[in-house]
């Protein structure tokens, strides 16, 4: 048959109408709606086989055990390892986002490696008899630290400096019935979260704090003293000065102090933290056995502190800040440098630390890119040996400070971690906890290679607990009473739990007001500045631009300062400050 045009059109139209009465077009529209449901520019998460890897977090000395959920070889999620004898499955907020550490926007990406080496060589050559080559290690007690000490020992005038000298004394929270903390953030970033939380129910926490820190707010008892008057109170409690004197300085009532003293009498054993005036009850402080090292390492430079060096005597200064630890104020360091062009080289991941002052800043790999061991934390009664084995590969151009400094000092090193592991294995002490199976077995039942494997695949060697000791805990230099500086009205309190620059941490400081943001100063709302505004922070040591956070928990006359190097450089112990509109 031959259809006329009209018939064809009719047929087409009819069928079109007919189709409208079938699900087809409607389903089609619904499905094509997807194009408006997905936008370009939204990153698609990588797919891949999912498996678990283990490591130890080396962001701080807590060295919590980490279970990493990986896609391919990318870690996408970190969590604690349940049943771990030390970290007990806990992971602090920073550890949770530890795998984002390599992505800090301000990360140091390249540095003048060649020039730095040459400059150091030159410095060594120029180094006079009364001058020193110094390695400043912000995280002592590591295997790398031993290498530094050996390297410095190999040099005739090498010195090894660390913020805290005594790494072998630890506290035993489980033994304490009362913990008296002078501004130490016991519950917030101090020690090992797992240990603290486990022991928390066992002790009564008395917090002496100038501001309502997170620890103060969770403490059983909180005494708000005047800033930097903690030591005065400690002295009074130790009976060195009268409660009346202390009352004036601290702003507490005499009765309160007396009551506190009595409380400590009955509440023993008492563990005192953050004070060099008051002593802890014997038994709450233990001396860890030293983690074994190969014999030949012993002939190395001792651990000394900065104060022991004469001023203007440091010709070459090598700073390892690859692992965040204590921070020494730059002004204190600068005093020690020789007058005529000293060589200062820092090994840093971020340009915000000593890189601001050093002649050469060399980029280093960070957790979880780099392999290194984590020294035991202050609250770990037993020595430990755990390796932060890398989860991702570092970007190119990163410098390994350990081998760099060794080479510079002409020291030839092998695989130091392995050597140390073997040394530990030789000692045949303690037990090894394996993360994968959650089993613990005596070290002596293990072959060296298995031990090494376990250490790298997620394991931890735990020594026998240390013995009680009368040794005192040292807490750096005792805080001086505040300067009386009339035009600097604010007393400074350093917030140790400041958030770092890890991108996602914006959740806890910018997208909520949970923590003090880096570069910010918290003030009482009565200070007259607007929340979130920019201001000038000024001390006798200089000034810096800061952001202002208003917090009714901060008493008037106090400035809580975030612990970023730039601000710490301005905040000497007991310093006063003023914050003015910029």
């Amino acid at each position, binding site marked *: 048959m031959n259809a006329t045009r009209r018939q064809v059109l009719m047929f087409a139209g009819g069928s079109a109408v007919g189709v409208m009465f079938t699900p087809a077009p409607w389903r089609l*529209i*619904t499905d094509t*709606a997807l194009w*408006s*449901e997905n936008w370009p520019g939204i990153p698609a998460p990588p797919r891949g086989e999912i498996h678990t890897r283990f490591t130890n977090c080396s962001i701080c000395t807590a060295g919590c055990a980490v279970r990493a959920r990986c896609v391919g070889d990318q870690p996408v999620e970190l969590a604690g390892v349940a049943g771990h004898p030390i970290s007990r499955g806990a992971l602090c907020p920073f550890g949770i986002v530890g795998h984002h550490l390599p992505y800090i926007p301000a990360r140091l990406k390249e540095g003048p490696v060649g020039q730095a080496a040459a400059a150091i060589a030159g410095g060594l050559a120029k180094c006079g008899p009364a001058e020193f080559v110094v390695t400043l290690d912000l995280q002592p007690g590591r295997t790398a630290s031993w290498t530094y000490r050996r390297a410095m020992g190999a040099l005739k005038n090498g010195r090894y400096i660390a913020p805290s000298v005594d790494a072998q004394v630890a506290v035993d929270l489980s033994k304490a019935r009362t913990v008296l903390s002078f501004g130490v953030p016991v519950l917030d970033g101090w020690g090992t979260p797992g240990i603290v939380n486990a022991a928390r129910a066992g002790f009564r926490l008395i917090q002496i704090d100038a501001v309502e820190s997170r620890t103060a707010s969770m403490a059983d008892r909180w005494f708000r003293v005047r800033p930097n008057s903690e030591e005065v109170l400690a002295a009074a409690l130790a009976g060195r000065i009268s409660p009346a004197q202390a009352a004036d300085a601290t702003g507490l009532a005499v009765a309160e102090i007396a009551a506190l003293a009595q409380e400590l009498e009955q509440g023993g054993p008492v563990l005192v933290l953050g004070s060099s005036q008051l002593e802890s009850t014997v038994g709450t402080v233990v001396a860890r056995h030293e983690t074994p090292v190969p014999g030949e390492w012993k002939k190395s430079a001792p651990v000394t502190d900065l104060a022991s060096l004469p001023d203007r005597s440091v010709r070459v200064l090598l700073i390892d800040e690859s692992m965040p630890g204590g921070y020494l104020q730059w002004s204190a360091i600068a005093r020690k440098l020789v007058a005529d062009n000293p060589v200062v080289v820092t090994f840093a991941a971020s340009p915000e630390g000593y890189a601001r002052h050093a002649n050469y800043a060399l980029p280093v790999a960070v957790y979880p890119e780099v392999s290194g061991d984590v020294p035991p934390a202050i609250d770990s009664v037993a020595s430990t040996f755990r390796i932060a084995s890398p989860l991702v590969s570092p970007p190119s151009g990163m410098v390994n400070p350990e081998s760099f400094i060794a080479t510079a000092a002409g020291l030839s090193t092998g695989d130091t971690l392995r050597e140390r592991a073997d040394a530990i294995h030789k000692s045949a002490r303690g037990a090894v906890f394996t993360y994968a199976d959650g089993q613990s077995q005596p070290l002596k039942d293990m072959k060296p290679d298995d031990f090494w494997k376990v250490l790298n695949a997620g394991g931890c060697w735990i020594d026998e607990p240390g013995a009680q000791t009368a040794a005192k805990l040292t807490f750096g230099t005792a805080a001086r009473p505040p300067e009386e500086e009339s035009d600097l009205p604010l007393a400074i309190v350093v917030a140790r739990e400041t958030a770092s620059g890890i991108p996602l941490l914006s959740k806890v400081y910018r997208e909520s007001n949970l923590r003090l943001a880096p570069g910010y100063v918290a003030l009482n709302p009565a200070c007259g500045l607007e929340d979130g505004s920019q201001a000038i922070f000024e001390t006798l040591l200089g000034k810096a631009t800061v952001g202002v956070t208003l917090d009714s928990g901060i008493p008037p006359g106090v400035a809580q300062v975030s612990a970023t190097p730039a601000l710490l450089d301005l905040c000497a112990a007991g310093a006063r400050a003023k914050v003015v509109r910029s």
Partner: protein
Amino acid sequence: MDKQLIARGVSRCPALKFLLWIAPWVALFLFGLYAAALCLIKGLNQTNMDNRFAFGLWIFLDLTVIALGAGAFFTGFLLYILKLDELSSVINSAVVIGLVCYSGAIAVLMVDVGQPLRAWFTFWYPNVHSMLTEVTFCLSCYLTVLAIEYVPIVLRNRKLRQIPSLLVFEFELHKLIYVLAGVGTFLSFFHQGSLGGLYGVLRGRPFAFREGLGLWPSTFFLFILSAAAVGPSFILLTTWMVQIITRKRLVRPEVLQLLGRISGTLLSVYVLAKSVDTLVWINRTSPETGFQAWQYYSWKPFGSWILVAEIVVCGLVPALMLLMPKLRCRTGWLVTGAFLACMGVALNRFVLTVQTLALPTLSFDRFLDYTPSWQETATFLAVVAYGVLVYSFSFRYFQLFPQERELKLETPEVEESELVGRY
């Protein structure tokens, strides 16, 4: 030059003068478009809204504008369904106002949502329990109705009516206008109500939450009432303003007074209902949800004055002004009354949208402040400019006020010079 487009027997200002009048509005409109484009392209981060202040100036604008635009449906209802023929002299103007208000509101809504491309999802996966669905459906339908009602007005243009097919179509369509009026009324009753329900159903916001009468919360009915009450007032107001601006007599004073009377009557009913509702809310609804009503007013600046202003100053007072024949027959009082009535409803919409969101619900909440960003404000002004433009053109080229010509013939004493108004 555009004389051939202007209806015979009415005088409009010279084209140049007209251009001068619209130029600033066009500028404002374009600027607003730019701002809106920013919001569409860069996203709503251009606004000062945030997670807590999820709605802002725009929603306030939508609710207010739609309430004021209610004159269109209500006049249509009175004229075509209740046969109140006096109103035929303002119905065209009412339709244009309605069209402007509704199209403006919908345009702003499109900017206000985060994913305009998905606007049609509401039609595709409608959640029939959501007031917003009701609003979306009714608004879009009613806008269509208004558009159709606007067609005859356009086709009556002097030039267009010379095209036979258009002339005939207009004639036939006008015969069926009753149907449209009916549908429009039906739709309007629903969306005015559901706009009220929008906040009334929020049990999470005890400040706005109201108990239900049947299917809908009380605000549903209050909104219908208030909208119907101010609709005529707004027409009265606009007509009066056009008369002032153009220095012409466009409708007989009796018509304005009639509008006033209608407005006044409904307004008084509304005020009564609103007061009862408020009392119930203060004494039962709010306390039952654990919120003492007085607390809401302890957050400055939203003191209890706002309640007084809404119900008494901008409710009861204008209602009385419009109801008393003595006052009503004086233009000053009439217009003031209408103005206050409109203010009252605007205030009501403001309280329900902005104040609701500003008030904290959790004990550790903050009382929030919010100032619209320039992008928001510009978009807002663009809608105003758009309204003025559409109305200006309609007034110049279409017959918005059928009585104009005869009124002109009735006033021989008016001087030629005066007659040359702005349009």
